């Protein structure tokens, strides 16, 4: 068991290295550098000598392979470099932003799980009923609503019209600020979870061993409790893990909309400014977070399902 977890953690190392390489190469081929993006405001004119000096200072005048070599060397010592913009170590910049994003991701997934899983479950127990129809219609609409539009509508209704909740920002970090952005971010995974749960439960309802359970004289309630829930949970848990990745990816939009001081908005700003060390660091942190969540899900699934071997 412990060796299984350790092996899974070790497997993350090559994945992270490969992703680091892809990000690095991507940002070395897209046009524009930090220095040139500083010139892009159209007002200041930077003289070529200054630009060359800045490029040298940031190490941007070296060929790609030299810079990549240096970068990998830094990574090996867990050093993510220095932000071009703030001149702070990237790790410091990220540390400030990680917690708000984690909060947002967990809160929106909590919302998605608390509403999506029971919705799908109830729908599956009564297929074709009005509950089923309503929940699946809302699931489809939840998946197709654009997040920025949903966010704006939430702001309009709950902040502007009703005045119950603050419209944007992190404020003092109280939960009141977290509610609207996590709903905006959580509706899509909720809809997907509802659908997945419904499909999983329906599939297991028709499984042979459920027929066996009925033939044993088990009531439907016992059958759901003893046989159905665990079998369905393996599928649902895997979906939850994958949805975490989607949520963090889409947090970029929601964080920007709600002025949420997380990794997403940091990422957008840093890409615009070509603050490459921060961009690379932020993406690596997001990837790491996604991998950790999914490793956790795999371990839980392996505990539930004895057919998954600890290899």
């Amino acid at each position, binding site marked *: 068991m412990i060796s299984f977890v350790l092996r899974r953690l070790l497997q993350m190392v090559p994945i992270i290295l490969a992703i680091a390489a892809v990000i690095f190469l991507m940002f070395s081929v897209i046009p524009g550098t930090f220095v040139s993006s500083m010139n892009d405001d159209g007002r200041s004119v930077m003289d070529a000598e200054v630009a060359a000096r800045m490029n040298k200072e940031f190490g941007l005048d070296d060929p790609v392979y030299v810079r990549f070599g240096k970068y990998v060397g830094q990574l090996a010592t867990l050093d993510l470099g220095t932000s071009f913009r703030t001149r702070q170590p990237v790790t410091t910049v990220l540390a400030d932003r990680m917690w708000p994003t984690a909060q947002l991701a967990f809160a929106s997934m909590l919302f998605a799980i608390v509403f999506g899983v029971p919705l799908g479950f109830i729908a599956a127990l009564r297929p074709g009923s009005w509950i089923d129809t309503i929940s699946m219609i809302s699931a489809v609409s939840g998946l197709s609503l654009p997040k920025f539009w949903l966010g704006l509508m939430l702001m309009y209704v709950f902040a502007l019209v009703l005045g119950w909740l603050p419209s944007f920002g992190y404020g003092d970090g109280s939960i009141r600020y977290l509610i609207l952005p996590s709903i905006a971010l959580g509706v899509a995974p909720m809809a997907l979870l509802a659908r997945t749960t419904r499909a999983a439960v329906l599939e297991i309802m028709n499984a*042979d*061993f459920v027929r*066996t359970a009925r*033939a*044993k*004289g*088990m009531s439907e309630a016992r059958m759901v409790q003893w046989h159905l829930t665990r*079998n369905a949970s393996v599928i649902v848990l895997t979906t939850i893990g994958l949805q975490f990745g989607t949520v963090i990816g889409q947090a970029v939009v929601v964080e920007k909309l709600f002025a949420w001081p997380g990794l997403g908005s940091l990422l957008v700003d840093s890409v615009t400014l070509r603050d490459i060390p921060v961009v690379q660091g932020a993406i690596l942190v997001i990837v790491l977070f996604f991998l950790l969540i999914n490793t956790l899900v795999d371990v839980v699934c392996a505990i539930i*399902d*004895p057919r998954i071997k600890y290899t």
Partner: protein
Amino acid sequence: MTGQALLEVEGLRIDLSVNGRRYPAVQDVSFSIRRGETFGLVGESGCGKSITALALIGLLRNPLSIGGGSIRFHGQELLDLSPGGMRKLRGSRISMIFQEPMTALNPLSPVGRQIAEMFVLHKGANWREAERQAVEALARVRVPAPERRVKDYPHQLSGGMRQRVMIAMALACGPDLLLADEPTTALDVTVQAEILDLIQELSAAQGTAVLMISHDLGLIANMCQNVGVMYAGRLIEQRAADSIFLTPRHPYTQGLVASLPLLGARSKFGRKKLKEIEGVVPPVVAFPPGCRFNPRCHAATDLCRAEDPVVTPLPESGLVRCHYHD
């Protein structure tokens, strides 16, 4: 209770609903099983054997439903029972073994627990006591080292072992009737014999009657006292096992018997093609008019194509549904 009959099925009809229309998938099926008897139900795939068994245990699911007739168990009409009353019978008085031991057990639950559930459900035992009885139940079906096997998950057991677990489960509460729906079809031939012996031995010991469903005539001939042959949702011949295979009366039964390969036939009579009944069982929505077997029958006449034959008692006991049974 009339005589020795444990189960009396009369005029059973099972409907298949397709787009709001109901088609009889099983029609006019009547038979009875005495206490401790082994009754065989034979026929090709799709002729209604399995759904007949599911109807007996009250497990028909959409789009299938009971369309009429009567099922009396210990003289009590099962079709009048409430769902709760039927549930009490299921597993304790009537139990069932399925064809696919691979999928019929919950993959996430140790087999011991799945057997123990029977004692918890029907005997009101607590889990510890039930788990102990599960070990005994596994020992009865001759699973080696049962006290260790109870902790195994289904995927750790072979097909034969899983079917033993199913049998242990089905017989756990000493039912009066065991429905065995092709219990050995998915197993190796060598394992088949062991499983059949086990079913026979244990049901005899407990006085359990068995409804054995199979398409394997040899198996039915060996195990059963009485046999019903089903074709396209109807019982077309019903007789004692020892006579039906010697003197089959219905052309379909004759075809089934003739299609059996005979060991040593090649050296005696030379190389010959195995006889088969040409064609396939018609789908439920497209049963032919007249006798349902007429499109495949070598002796079909205009009468067979026009008129449905009725059930006729045979002089030597037994029933047949054919215009030309003599």
